[in-house]
């Protein structure tokens, strides 16, 4: 049954001797999930070794590389650390929202309720690093980003905040030039 659903190296390793009835016996079984296709894996030379931590109850300084590892594990195809100062925010982008986007004036994710350029710049200036994610289209990458925000927070990156690429235009299809 294990191999039918996709496991490999399925093996009944031993009997445990703990049987719940004369008609059953306790066993130890192991199996593994096959490695993914290479296109979805982080190149091996870029994998950061997990730091050896043996002392319980003491949380080490958070590593942004660990967040990158989680981004790949959650399904991102690319994840890159960038300087937050390189993120460009400009006024013209709001015009794209104002003229031609059906979500204008609809909710807090879109103008005029979404943060304006000055506020966005001020918030970005409170960060030194950001992680640029690239991955599956549509809601999946949003789910990954939000999940990663939560995990980064728990790792100690308390200011972690996901800015996601929502679909724009009618029917959720990207509109050329729209944000």
């Amino acid at each position: 049954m294990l191999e039918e659903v996709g496991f490999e190296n399925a093996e009944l390793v031993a009997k445990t001797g703990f049987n719940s009835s004369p008609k059953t016996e306790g066993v130890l079984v192991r199996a593994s999930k096959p490695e993914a296709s290479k296109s979805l894996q982080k190149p091996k030379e870029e994998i950061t070794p997990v730091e050896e931590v043996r002392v319980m109850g003491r949380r080490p300084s958070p590593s942004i590389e660990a967040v990158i590892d989680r981004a790949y594990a959650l399904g991102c195809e690319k994840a890159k650390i960038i300087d937050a100062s390189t993120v460009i925010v400009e006024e013209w982008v709001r015009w794209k929202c104002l003229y031609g986007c059906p979500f204008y004036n609809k909710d807090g994710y879109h103008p005029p309720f979404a943060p304006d350029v000055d506020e966005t710049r001020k918030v970005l200036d409170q960060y030194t690093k950001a992680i640029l994610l690239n991955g599956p289209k549509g809601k999946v990458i949003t789910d990954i980003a939000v999940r990663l925000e939560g995990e980064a927070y728990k790792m100690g990156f308390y200011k972690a905040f996901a800015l996601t690429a929502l679909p724009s235009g009618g029917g959720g299809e990207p509109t050329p030039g729209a944000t």
Partner: protein
Amino acid sequence: MKTDITPGDRKKIEEGIREKYSKVADSPHGLFAYPTGRSGIEAQKYAPELVSALPEEIISSYCGVGNPFSLRQIQTGESVLDIGSGAGVDTLIAAMMAGPTGKVVGIDIVPEMLRRAESNLAMTDLHNVTFRMASGEDLPFLDAEFDSVISNGVINLIPDKPRLLKEVIRVLKPGGSLMLADQVAIGSVQKDMKARLANWFQ
């Protein structure tokens, strides 16, 4: 891989599990045909240094059928899912192995067992463990979230095993490990569903 379990059968199985394991949450002593508590965990040769790190009250709640960590050690930094975590003894041991950079999640469908697990967790200084109510057949986790999935004496109770295994492989990372200790039927499986249901919780 179809199952012949009807919705009515499933309801009976789940009610039976809840009835039995609400008692187990108080104490497993005398409720199983094999040793539980300290004698059980020592017989299954869990790492003594990990067992000795846990308070006796936690050890007394152990009722596993084997030692999943004998199949593979959890490594520092791993994320681990414990399906049917019960009182959480395996979950806590996995958390000690995974260390502060790892995370371990235990799931169970019996509220009393989850409360016992939370109570056991509160007796430790572990901060990398969470318990939540969930069924192994519908895992509330993203794809590729865990390095390892463990389970001890639980999958034999699950009505739709193929569905559970599909969920397990979904939440495992590529190359991730499944380590099971469980009960398997020997001899022929009873065809009469009524008889099978009667024996489901042994």
